[in-house]
């Protein structure tokens, strides 16, 4: 199987624009959250907004796309790639939730009231399809895919890009996710009763729900060969991807984390490693009672109760379709920097969760890091990343999947 390198990272969230600003926020333990300022609302839940999007990437009324363009640009710069990608075999695979819906309240209010409505919001929606718009902006000629897998969209976009690269559908892939803070999910998550009135506390006994956030996280993936040919040293590697459905419930995770376990085992098998080779897990850790109990219990069972675990949601909020992209970028950065930040918000051990996340900036070794995502709809995703200088990571020649007798059907 082709070895897939990571050559660039691009992030924007409440924790900062670019990896170095973000790591500085992580290091200081700052939480840049507060009340909603992007639109008037009666809801008082704290949120994590991006305070400034560079003017160059600002598109009026298309905030998700603006965030995505900013992160993609950052990742391309980091990877040493040009703005014009038309001469390369590039694909774009991005996840989102908000940008995929025609949910403009003013448009709909006008339509309901008068039976007529302006077409500008519709045009913005049609022009704002994330992968198509990013492909257009950077003159990408290869495949483009917008993944709408709810909260695992960003992670699954990275997984889909991995499949493209392994199958030679493109040489380089822009992959990740983006989402804006929007009234519709704010009201929706509020109605589900899973948002906290205070800053979120992932895995804490007193946790009372999630905070919404916004942002974009993007990786540049490329075949190791192409990356080296153009004189670029990889930052790290994407070693494995696992995705599995719970087939259980639309909004609740499987109580034993069945799908998450299958996703994790598949991702580890693809990477060709055992759980004890994993240095740390960047957990989904939304701080809802259900998610953290199911996820924490399963992570302890697979990796042991002493595994170094963190959730970065305390710094960024839950950025929905961007979460998988941002957390993938954070995981790769942590492997490079050899430390993970404190899992901010955690104070009290929960007797029902047999592990505790790290409470301070913690050194890690070179090796493997895992990022998990759980989504509405019962989808579960795990990504395994490897350090660039890990001696242990070597490409496997064939996928380590149990071979099935194909004559059975």
């Amino acid at each position, binding site marked *: 199987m082709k070895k897939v390198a990571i050559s660039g990272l691009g992030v924007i969230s409440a924790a900062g624009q670019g990896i170095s600003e973000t790591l500085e926020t992580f290091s200081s333990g700052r939480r840049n959250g507060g009340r909603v300022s992007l639109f008037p609302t009666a809801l008082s839940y704290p949120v994590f907004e991006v305070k400034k999007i560079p003017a160059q990437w600002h598109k009026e009324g298309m905030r998700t796309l603006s965030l995505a363009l900013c992160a993609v640009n950052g990742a391309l710069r980091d990877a040493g790639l040009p703005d014009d990608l038309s001469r390369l075999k590039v694909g774009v695979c991005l996840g989102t939730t908000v940008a995929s819906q025609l949910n403009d309240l003013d448009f709909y209010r006008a339509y309901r009231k008068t039976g007529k409505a302006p077409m500008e919001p519709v045009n913005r929606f049609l022009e704002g399809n994330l992968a198509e718009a990013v492909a257009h902006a950077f003159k990408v000629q290869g495949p483009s895919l917008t993944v709408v897998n709810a909260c695992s969209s960003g992670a699954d976009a990275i997984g889909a890009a991995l499949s493209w690269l392994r199958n030679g559908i493109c040489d380089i892939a822009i992959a990740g996710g983006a989402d804006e803070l929007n009234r519709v999910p704010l009201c929706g998550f509020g*109605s*589900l*009763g899973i948002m906290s009135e205070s800053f979120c506390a992932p895995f804490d006994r007193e946790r009372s729900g999630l905070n919404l956030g916004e942002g974009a996280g993007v990786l540049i993936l490329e075949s190791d060969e192409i990356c080296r040919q153009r004189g670029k040293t990889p930052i790290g590697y994407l070693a494995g991807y696992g995705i599995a459905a719970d087939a259980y*419930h*639309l*909004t*609740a995770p499987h109580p034993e984390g069945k799908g998450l376990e299958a996703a994790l085992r598949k991702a580890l098998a693809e990477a060709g490693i055992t759980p004890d080779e994993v240095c740390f897990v960047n957990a989904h850790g939304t701080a809802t009672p259900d998610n953290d109990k199911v996820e924490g219990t399963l992570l302890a069972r697979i990796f042991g109760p002493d595994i170094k675990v963190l959730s970065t949601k305390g710094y960024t909020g839950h950025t929905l379709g961007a979460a998988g992209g941002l957390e993938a970028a954070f995981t790769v950065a942590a492997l490079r920097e050899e430390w993970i930040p404190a899992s901010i918000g955690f104070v009290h051990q929960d007797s029902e969760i047999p592990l505790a996340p790290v409470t301070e900036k913690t050194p890690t070794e070179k090796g493997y890091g895992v990022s998990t995502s759980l989504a509405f709809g019962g989808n579960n995703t795990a990504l395994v990343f490897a350090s660039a200088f890990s001696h242990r990571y070597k490409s496997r020649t064939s996928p380590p999947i149990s071979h099935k007798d194909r004559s059975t059907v």
Partner: protein
Amino acid sequence: MEEDQAKDLAEVRKRVKELLVDNLSLEDIKVQDIRDDELLFGEEGLGLDSLDAVEIVVLLQRNFGLELKDIDQGRKIFYSIDTLARYIYENREGTVLKERL
């Protein structure tokens, strides 16, 4: 007096059953087939789940002006048709009063 109370409570139970059938897409269940002491969750009851529970919170708010925030309190109230109806019966008066003020 007690007779009036029992009558009112029966009215609320009927209203609760109607609300659940209409709003939770309980396609195969008829209002008249639901017992007063029918459990809301689990296979032996109406088979409702966590998503229905949060939907009932919204129904209480929209129809009776009742705001339910405490999950532990919710568990007891959402036990059966009867417990839910009693909660509404005992608390909606306060709401009406508030509206008048």
